[in-house]
Protein backbone atom coordinates (compact mmCIF):
# COMPACT_ATOMS: atom_id res chain seq x y z
CA UNK A 1 0.00 0.00 0.00
CA UNK A 2 1.26 3.49 -0.80
CA UNK A 3 1.46 5.53 2.39
CA UNK A 4 -0.84 8.52 2.35
CA UNK A 5 0.13 11.18 4.87
CA UNK A 6 0.24 14.95 5.13
CA UNK A 7 3.34 16.28 6.81
CA UNK A 8 3.14 18.86 9.54
CA UNK A 9 5.29 21.17 7.47
CA UNK A 10 2.86 20.99 4.54
CA UNK A 11 -0.06 21.63 6.80
CA UNK A 12 1.26 24.36 9.01
CA UNK A 13 1.87 26.91 6.28
CA UNK A 14 -1.56 26.65 4.68
CA UNK A 15 -3.28 26.41 8.06
CA UNK A 16 -1.64 29.58 9.35
CA UNK A 17 -2.29 31.41 6.09
CA UNK A 18 -5.95 30.59 6.54
CA UNK A 19 -5.91 31.79 10.15
CA UNK A 20 -4.17 34.96 9.09
CA UNK A 21 -6.79 35.69 6.45
CA UNK A 22 -9.26 35.69 9.33
CA UNK A 23 -12.10 34.44 7.20
CA UNK A 24 -14.59 32.65 9.44
CA UNK A 25 -15.64 29.20 8.22
CA UNK A 26 -19.11 28.71 6.82
CA UNK A 27 -21.64 28.17 9.57
CA UNK A 28 -25.28 27.90 8.61
CA UNK A 29 -27.58 30.38 10.28
CA UNK A 30 -30.47 28.87 12.17
CA UNK A 31 -33.39 30.26 14.08
CA UNK A 32 -34.35 29.70 17.70
CA UNK A 33 -34.65 27.36 19.40
CA UNK A 34 -32.01 25.66 17.27
CA UNK A 35 -29.75 28.69 16.71
CA UNK A 36 -27.16 27.12 19.00
CA UNK A 37 -26.70 24.08 16.78
CA UNK A 38 -23.34 24.27 15.08
CA UNK A 39 -24.35 23.16 11.59
CA UNK A 40 -21.57 23.65 9.08
CA UNK A 41 -19.92 21.71 6.27
CA UNK A 42 -18.15 18.65 7.59
CA UNK A 43 -20.27 18.21 10.69
CA UNK A 44 -22.20 15.10 11.63
CA UNK A 45 -25.01 15.78 14.09
CA UNK A 46 -27.16 13.09 15.62
CA UNK A 47 -30.70 13.42 16.99
CA UNK A 48 -31.92 10.47 19.00
CA UNK A 49 -35.15 9.84 20.79
CA UNK A 50 -38.05 7.56 21.48
CA UNK A 51 -40.56 6.82 18.71
CA UNK A 52 -42.86 9.80 18.22
CA UNK A 53 -40.48 11.95 20.22
CA UNK A 54 -40.23 14.76 17.66
CA UNK A 55 -37.03 13.79 15.83
CA UNK A 56 -38.48 14.20 12.34
CA UNK A 57 -40.21 17.47 13.23
CA UNK A 58 -37.02 18.86 14.75
CA UNK A 59 -34.91 17.88 11.77
CA UNK A 60 -37.43 19.30 9.30
CA UNK A 61 -37.59 22.55 11.22
CA UNK A 62 -33.79 22.81 11.25
CA UNK A 63 -33.61 21.93 7.56
CA UNK A 64 -36.29 24.30 6.33
CA UNK A 65 -35.11 27.21 8.50
CA UNK A 66 -31.59 26.58 7.27
CA UNK A 67 -32.76 26.74 3.66
CA UNK A 68 -34.75 29.91 4.24
CA UNK A 69 -31.96 31.67 6.12
CA UNK A 70 -28.99 30.58 4.01
CA UNK A 71 -29.47 31.50 0.40
CA UNK A 72 -26.86 29.17 -1.06
CA UNK A 73 -27.70 26.04 0.94
CA UNK A 74 -29.09 22.97 -0.80
CA UNK A 75 -30.85 20.33 1.25
CA UNK A 76 -31.46 16.66 0.58
CA UNK A 77 -33.99 15.00 2.86
CA UNK A 78 -33.87 11.21 3.00
CA UNK A 79 -36.68 9.86 5.14
CA UNK A 80 -37.32 6.12 5.07
CA UNK A 81 -40.60 6.36 6.95
CA UNK A 82 -42.57 9.06 5.21
CA UNK A 83 -43.17 9.84 1.59
CA UNK A 84 -42.32 13.39 0.48
CA UNK A 85 -45.94 14.56 0.42
CA UNK A 86 -46.33 13.68 4.09
CA UNK A 87 -43.18 15.60 4.88
CA UNK A 88 -44.53 18.60 2.98
CA UNK A 89 -47.74 18.34 5.05
CA UNK A 90 -45.61 18.74 8.15
CA UNK A 91 -43.47 21.55 6.79
CA UNK A 92 -46.52 23.52 5.70
CA UNK A 93 -48.28 22.87 9.00
CA UNK A 94 -45.43 24.59 10.81
CA UNK A 95 -45.08 27.51 8.43
CA UNK A 96 -48.82 28.14 8.27
CA UNK A 97 -49.68 27.33 11.90
CA UNK A 98 -52.51 25.19 10.57
CA UNK A 99 -53.07 21.93 12.47
CA UNK A 100 -51.38 19.01 10.77
CA UNK A 101 -54.52 16.88 10.87
CA UNK A 102 -56.47 19.53 8.96
CA UNK A 103 -53.80 19.50 6.26
CA UNK A 104 -53.51 15.72 6.11
CA UNK A 105 -57.30 15.28 6.00
CA UNK A 106 -57.65 18.19 3.55
CA UNK A 107 -60.35 19.73 5.73
CA UNK A 108 -59.15 23.30 5.60
CA UNK A 109 -61.34 26.26 6.42
CA UNK A 110 -61.05 29.27 4.08
CA UNK A 111 -58.85 30.99 6.67
CA UNK A 112 -56.60 27.95 6.94
CA UNK A 113 -56.42 27.68 3.17
CA UNK A 114 -55.23 31.27 3.02
CA UNK A 115 -52.54 30.48 5.56
CA UNK A 116 -51.46 27.42 3.62
CA UNK A 117 -51.31 29.52 0.47
CA UNK A 118 -48.99 31.98 2.26
CA UNK A 119 -46.81 29.11 3.49
CA UNK A 120 -46.54 27.62 0.01
CA UNK A 121 -45.59 31.04 -1.35
CA UNK A 122 -42.92 31.29 1.33
CA UNK A 123 -41.59 27.87 0.40
CA UNK A 124 -41.51 28.56 -3.32
CA UNK A 125 -38.20 30.50 -3.31
CA UNK A 126 -36.40 27.63 -1.57
CA UNK A 127 -38.18 24.74 -3.26
CA UNK A 128 -35.52 24.51 -5.97
CA UNK A 129 -32.88 23.98 -3.32
CA UNK A 130 -34.81 21.23 -1.57
CA UNK A 131 -34.95 17.59 -2.66
CA UNK A 132 -36.48 14.48 -1.15
CA UNK A 133 -34.93 11.08 -1.68
CA UNK A 134 -37.19 8.38 -3.07
CA UNK A 135 -36.60 4.63 -2.68
CA UNK A 136 -34.28 2.75 -2.58
CA UNK A 137 -33.13 3.87 0.83
CA UNK A 138 -29.50 2.93 0.65
CA UNK A 139 -26.56 5.13 1.53
CA UNK A 140 -25.21 4.62 -1.98
CA UNK A 141 -28.41 6.20 -3.30
CA UNK A 142 -28.07 9.04 -0.79
CA UNK A 143 -24.50 9.63 -1.96
CA UNK A 144 -25.48 9.60 -5.62
CA UNK A 145 -28.49 11.86 -5.08
CA UNK A 146 -26.50 14.22 -2.88
CA UNK A 147 -23.81 14.56 -5.50
CA UNK A 148 -26.28 14.94 -8.34
CA UNK A 149 -28.28 17.57 -6.46
CA UNK A 150 -25.12 19.26 -5.14
CA UNK A 151 -26.54 19.10 -1.63
CA UNK A 152 -24.43 20.61 1.09
CA UNK A 153 -26.85 19.66 3.83
CA UNK A 154 -28.36 16.20 4.23
CA UNK A 155 -30.99 14.92 6.60
CA UNK A 156 -31.19 11.17 7.08
CA UNK A 157 -34.16 9.92 9.02
CA UNK A 158 -33.50 7.41 10.46
CA UNK A 159 -30.08 5.84 10.12
CA UNK A 160 -30.89 2.32 11.35
CA UNK A 161 -33.25 1.84 8.41
CA UNK A 162 -30.79 2.69 5.64
CA UNK A 163 -29.00 -0.19 3.94
CA UNK A 164 -25.35 -0.23 2.97
CA UNK A 165 -23.87 -2.36 0.21
CA UNK A 166 -25.97 -5.37 -0.68
CA UNK A 167 -27.56 -5.34 2.75
CA UNK A 168 -26.27 -8.82 3.57
CA UNK A 169 -24.27 -7.80 6.65
CA UNK A 170 -25.89 -8.01 10.04
CA UNK A 171 -27.50 -4.86 11.40
CA UNK A 172 -24.61 -3.89 13.65
CA UNK A 173 -22.06 -4.31 10.87
CA UNK A 174 -24.28 -2.30 8.52
CA UNK A 175 -24.54 0.52 11.04
CA UNK A 176 -20.80 0.61 11.58
CA UNK A 177 -20.28 0.87 7.83
CA UNK A 178 -23.04 3.49 7.65
CA UNK A 179 -21.23 5.74 10.13
CA UNK A 180 -18.06 5.47 8.03
CA UNK A 181 -20.08 6.44 4.94
CA UNK A 182 -21.67 9.38 6.77
CA UNK A 183 -18.22 10.62 7.73
CA UNK A 184 -17.27 10.47 4.09
CA UNK A 185 -20.25 12.68 3.24
CA UNK A 186 -18.93 15.11 5.84
CA UNK A 187 -15.38 14.91 4.50
CA UNK A 188 -16.80 15.77 1.10
CA UNK A 189 -18.12 19.02 2.60
CA UNK A 190 -21.68 18.21 3.57
CA UNK A 191 -23.35 18.95 6.88
CA UNK A 192 -25.17 15.78 7.83
CA UNK A 193 -28.04 15.67 10.29
CA UNK A 194 -29.11 12.20 11.29
CA UNK A 195 -32.04 10.84 13.26
CA UNK A 196 -31.31 7.68 15.17
CA UNK A 197 -33.50 5.24 17.02
CA UNK A 198 -32.66 4.58 20.64
CA UNK A 199 -32.87 1.42 22.69
CA UNK A 200 -35.13 1.10 25.69
CA UNK A 201 -33.41 1.22 29.03
CA UNK A 202 -33.77 -1.78 31.26
CA UNK A 203 -35.16 -1.14 34.71
CA UNK A 204 -36.17 -3.34 37.59
CA UNK A 205 -39.77 -3.26 36.39
CA UNK A 206 -39.22 -3.70 32.65
CA UNK A 207 -37.88 -1.43 29.94
CA UNK A 208 -38.52 2.22 29.28
CA UNK A 209 -37.40 5.15 27.17
CA UNK A 210 -36.68 7.18 30.28
CA UNK A 211 -33.11 7.78 31.38
CA UNK A 212 -31.64 7.85 27.88
CA UNK A 213 -27.95 8.60 27.52
CA UNK A 214 -25.18 8.55 24.94
CA UNK A 215 -25.09 4.77 25.05
CA UNK A 216 -28.79 4.55 24.17
CA UNK A 217 -28.40 4.97 20.41
CA UNK A 218 -29.58 1.69 19.02
CA UNK A 219 -27.22 -0.67 17.32
CA UNK A 220 -23.67 0.45 17.52
CA UNK A 221 -21.25 2.42 19.59
CA UNK A 222 -19.84 3.68 16.29
CA UNK A 223 -22.71 6.17 16.31
CA UNK A 224 -21.54 7.60 19.62
CA UNK A 225 -17.93 7.81 18.52
CA UNK A 226 -18.42 8.85 14.93
CA UNK A 227 -20.72 11.80 15.46
CA UNK A 228 -19.56 15.34 16.20
CA UNK A 229 -22.61 16.28 18.24
CA UNK A 230 -25.32 14.11 19.70
CA UNK A 231 -28.65 15.24 21.11
CA UNK A 232 -31.33 13.16 22.75
CA UNK A 233 -34.90 14.45 22.57
CA UNK A 234 -36.21 13.97 26.06
CA UNK A 235 -39.74 14.93 27.17
CA UNK A 236 -39.73 17.71 29.72
CA UNK A 237 -42.56 19.09 31.77
CA UNK A 238 -45.81 19.87 30.01
CA UNK A 239 -45.28 20.19 26.29
CA UNK A 240 -41.53 20.62 26.67
CA UNK A 241 -38.86 18.67 24.88
CA UNK A 242 -35.25 19.06 25.89
CA UNK A 243 -32.56 18.36 23.38
CA UNK A 244 -30.16 16.85 25.83
CA UNK A 245 -26.66 17.39 24.49
CA UNK A 246 -24.71 14.21 25.09
CA UNK A 247 -21.67 15.10 23.08
CA UNK A 248 -20.27 18.14 21.34
CA UNK A 249 -16.83 17.67 19.93
CA UNK A 250 -16.30 21.32 19.00
CA UNK A 251 -18.16 23.30 21.61
CA UNK A 252 -19.96 23.45 24.90
CA UNK A 253 -22.23 20.59 25.88
CA UNK A 254 -25.38 22.66 26.24
CA UNK A 255 -28.93 21.35 26.31
CA UNK A 256 -31.58 23.06 24.20
CA UNK A 257 -34.86 23.56 26.03
CA UNK A 258 -37.88 23.73 23.75
CA UNK A 259 -41.64 23.53 23.72
CA UNK A 260 -43.17 21.40 21.04
CA UNK A 261 -46.56 22.04 19.53
CA UNK A 262 -47.19 18.67 17.92
CA UNK A 263 -50.42 19.89 16.29
CA UNK A 264 -48.45 22.40 14.27
CA UNK A 265 -45.09 20.60 14.22
CA UNK A 266 -43.39 23.59 15.76
CA UNK A 267 -40.57 23.83 18.24
CA UNK A 268 -40.25 27.12 20.13
CA UNK A 269 -37.80 28.09 22.85
CA UNK A 270 -38.88 26.99 26.31
CA UNK A 271 -39.27 29.77 28.82
CA UNK A 272 -36.28 29.81 31.09
CA UNK A 273 -35.55 31.12 34.55
CA UNK A 274 -38.11 33.56 35.86
CA UNK A 275 -39.96 33.48 32.54
CA UNK A 276 -41.17 30.08 33.65
CA UNK A 277 -43.28 31.82 36.27
CA UNK A 278 -45.18 33.57 33.51
CA UNK A 279 -45.39 30.36 31.51
CA UNK A 280 -46.96 28.73 34.54
CA UNK A 281 -50.12 30.76 34.19
CA UNK A 282 -51.27 32.26 37.45
CA UNK A 283 -54.61 31.05 38.66
CA UNK A 284 -57.22 32.56 36.35
CA UNK A 285 -59.88 32.51 39.00
CA UNK A 286 -59.91 32.79 42.69
CA UNK A 287 -61.02 29.19 43.00
CA UNK A 288 -57.98 27.72 41.33
CA UNK A 289 -57.68 24.00 41.72
CA UNK A 290 -53.90 24.10 41.65
CA UNK A 291 -52.27 22.23 44.44
CA UNK A 292 -49.00 23.00 46.10
CA UNK A 293 -46.32 20.57 44.98
Amino acid at each position, binding site marked *: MTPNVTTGADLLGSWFAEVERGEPPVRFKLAEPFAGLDVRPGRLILFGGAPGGGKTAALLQVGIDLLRMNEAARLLVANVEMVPTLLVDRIVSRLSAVPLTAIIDRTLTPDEL*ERVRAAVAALAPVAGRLAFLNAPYSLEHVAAAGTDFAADVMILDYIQRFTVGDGSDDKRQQLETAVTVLRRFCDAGAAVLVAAAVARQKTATGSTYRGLNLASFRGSSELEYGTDSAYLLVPAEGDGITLQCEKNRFGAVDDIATRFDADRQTFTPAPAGLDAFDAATPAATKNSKSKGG
Partner: protein
Amino acid sequence: MRRLTMNEVKEHHGGILPPDAILRPDVDEEPARAAPPSKPKRRAARSERFAALNAFVDFGISDAALTPAEALVWLVLFRDVKGTGTARTGQADIARRAGLSVRGVKLALRKLKAKGMVQVVRRGQLNAGPSTYRVLPTRRMG
Protein backbone atom coordinates in the same frame (compact mmCIF):
# COMPACT_ATOMS: atom_id res chain seq x y z
CA MET B 1 -37.69 32.88 13.46
CA ARG B 2 -40.37 35.53 13.98
CA ARG B 3 -43.92 34.35 14.45
CA LEU B 4 -46.38 36.61 12.69
CA THR B 5 -50.14 36.52 12.51
CA MET B 6 -51.79 36.39 9.10
CA ASN B 7 -53.00 39.93 9.67
CA GLU B 8 -49.46 41.14 10.33
CA VAL B 9 -48.25 39.43 7.15
CA LYS B 10 -51.02 41.13 5.16
CA GLU B 11 -50.58 44.54 6.71
CA HIS B 12 -46.80 44.78 6.91
CA HIS B 13 -45.45 42.36 4.31
CA GLY B 14 -47.93 42.56 1.45
CA GLY B 15 -49.27 39.08 2.20
CA ILE B 16 -45.87 37.45 1.68
CA LEU B 17 -44.34 35.57 4.57
CA PRO B 18 -40.77 36.92 5.08
CA PRO B 19 -37.94 34.37 5.01
CA ASP B 20 -37.25 34.83 8.70
CA ALA B 21 -40.82 34.25 9.81
CA ILE B 22 -43.51 31.65 10.18
CA LEU B 23 -47.19 32.14 10.83
CA ARG B 24 -48.78 31.77 14.20
CA PRO B 25 -52.41 31.29 15.15
CA ASP B 26 -54.32 34.58 15.16
CA VAL B 27 -55.49 33.84 18.65
CA ASP B 28 -52.52 35.17 20.57
CA GLU B 29 -52.10 32.08 22.59
CA GLU B 30 -49.40 29.50 22.63
CA PRO B 31 -51.05 26.30 21.50
CA ALA B 32 -50.46 23.66 24.07
CA ARG B 33 -50.39 19.97 23.44
CA ALA B 34 -52.24 17.91 25.95
CA ALA B 35 -49.79 15.75 27.82
CA PRO B 36 -49.97 12.15 26.66
CA PRO B 37 -51.42 9.89 29.33
CA SER B 38 -48.24 7.88 29.48
CA LYS B 39 -46.20 10.81 30.73
CA PRO B 40 -45.34 10.54 34.38
CA LYS B 41 -46.90 13.18 36.58
CA ARG B 42 -43.51 14.28 37.84
CA ARG B 43 -42.81 16.11 34.58
CA ALA B 44 -45.53 18.59 35.32
CA ALA B 45 -44.39 19.09 38.88
CA ARG B 46 -42.29 22.19 38.31
CA SER B 47 -44.85 24.16 36.35
CA GLU B 48 -47.54 23.10 38.81
CA ARG B 49 -45.42 24.45 41.61
CA PHE B 50 -44.97 27.72 39.77
CA ALA B 51 -48.70 27.90 39.11
CA ALA B 52 -49.44 27.20 42.77
CA LEU B 53 -47.00 29.85 43.91
CA ASN B 54 -48.42 32.34 41.43
CA ALA B 55 -51.96 31.63 42.62
CA PHE B 56 -50.88 32.04 46.24
CA VAL B 57 -49.27 35.42 45.55
CA ASP B 58 -51.99 36.63 43.17
CA PHE B 59 -55.03 35.59 45.20
CA GLY B 60 -54.23 33.46 48.23
CA ILE B 61 -52.56 36.08 50.42
CA SER B 62 -55.18 38.77 49.93
CA ASP B 63 -58.25 36.52 49.94
CA ALA B 64 -57.27 34.83 53.16
CA ALA B 65 -55.93 38.10 54.62
CA LEU B 66 -52.72 36.38 55.67
CA THR B 67 -50.39 38.05 58.10
CA PRO B 68 -46.68 38.12 57.21
CA ALA B 69 -46.05 35.32 59.73
CA GLU B 70 -48.77 33.15 58.20
CA ALA B 71 -47.43 33.77 54.70
CA LEU B 72 -43.93 32.82 55.84
CA VAL B 73 -45.11 29.61 57.45
CA TRP B 74 -47.09 28.80 54.30
CA LEU B 75 -43.96 29.38 52.19
CA VAL B 76 -41.81 27.10 54.32
CA LEU B 77 -44.40 24.35 54.06
CA PHE B 78 -44.74 24.96 50.31
CA ARG B 79 -40.97 24.63 50.02
CA ASP B 80 -41.15 21.25 51.74
CA VAL B 81 -43.99 19.78 49.68
CA LYS B 82 -42.84 16.48 48.22
CA GLY B 83 -44.08 14.44 45.28
CA THR B 84 -46.88 13.17 47.51
CA GLY B 85 -48.34 16.69 47.53
CA THR B 86 -47.83 17.03 51.26
CA ALA B 87 -45.21 18.51 53.56
CA ARG B 88 -44.03 17.06 56.83
CA THR B 89 -42.09 19.68 58.74
CA GLY B 90 -41.67 20.15 62.45
CA GLN B 91 -42.84 23.36 64.05
CA ALA B 92 -39.41 24.06 65.51
CA ASP B 93 -37.87 23.68 62.04
CA ILE B 94 -40.44 26.04 60.54
CA ALA B 95 -39.75 28.53 63.32
CA ARG B 96 -35.99 28.41 62.73
CA ARG B 97 -36.27 28.88 58.96
CA ALA B 98 -38.96 31.54 59.07
CA GLY B 99 -37.32 33.49 61.88
CA LEU B 100 -40.36 33.09 64.13
CA SER B 101 -40.91 31.70 67.56
CA VAL B 102 -42.38 28.21 67.92
CA ARG B 103 -45.36 29.80 69.59
CA GLY B 104 -45.76 32.14 66.60
CA VAL B 105 -45.63 29.15 64.24
CA LYS B 106 -48.27 27.28 66.23
CA LEU B 107 -50.52 30.31 66.05
CA ALA B 108 -49.88 30.84 62.33
CA LEU B 109 -50.59 27.20 61.56
CA ARG B 110 -53.84 27.35 63.47
CA LYS B 111 -54.87 30.43 61.50
CA LEU B 112 -53.79 28.93 58.19
CA LYS B 113 -55.95 25.88 58.90
CA ALA B 114 -58.88 28.06 59.88
CA LYS B 115 -58.48 30.14 56.72
CA GLY B 116 -58.41 27.04 54.50
CA MET B 117 -54.85 27.49 53.31
CA VAL B 118 -53.43 24.40 54.99
CA GLN B 119 -54.99 21.06 55.81
CA VAL B 120 -53.64 18.64 58.36
CA VAL B 121 -53.49 15.26 56.67
CA ARG B 122 -52.02 13.45 59.65
CA ARG B 123 -51.58 14.85 63.10
CA GLY B 124 -48.11 14.55 64.60
CA GLN B 125 -47.46 12.78 67.85
CA LEU B 126 -44.66 12.64 70.34
CA ASN B 127 -43.32 9.34 69.07
CA ALA B 128 -44.56 9.61 65.49
CA GLY B 129 -42.90 12.85 64.34
CA PRO B 130 -44.30 16.07 62.88
CA SER B 131 -47.74 16.56 61.37
CA THR B 132 -48.28 16.12 57.65
CA TYR B 133 -49.78 19.13 55.86
CA ARG B 134 -51.42 19.72 52.53
CA VAL B 135 -50.66 23.24 51.32
CA LEU B 136 -53.35 25.04 49.31
CA PRO B 137 -52.56 28.08 47.19
CA THR B 138 -56.01 29.61 47.66
CA ARG B 139 -58.69 29.25 50.29
CA ARG B 140 -60.49 25.96 50.41
CA MET B 141 -63.07 25.70 53.10
CA GLY B 142 -64.76 22.58 54.38
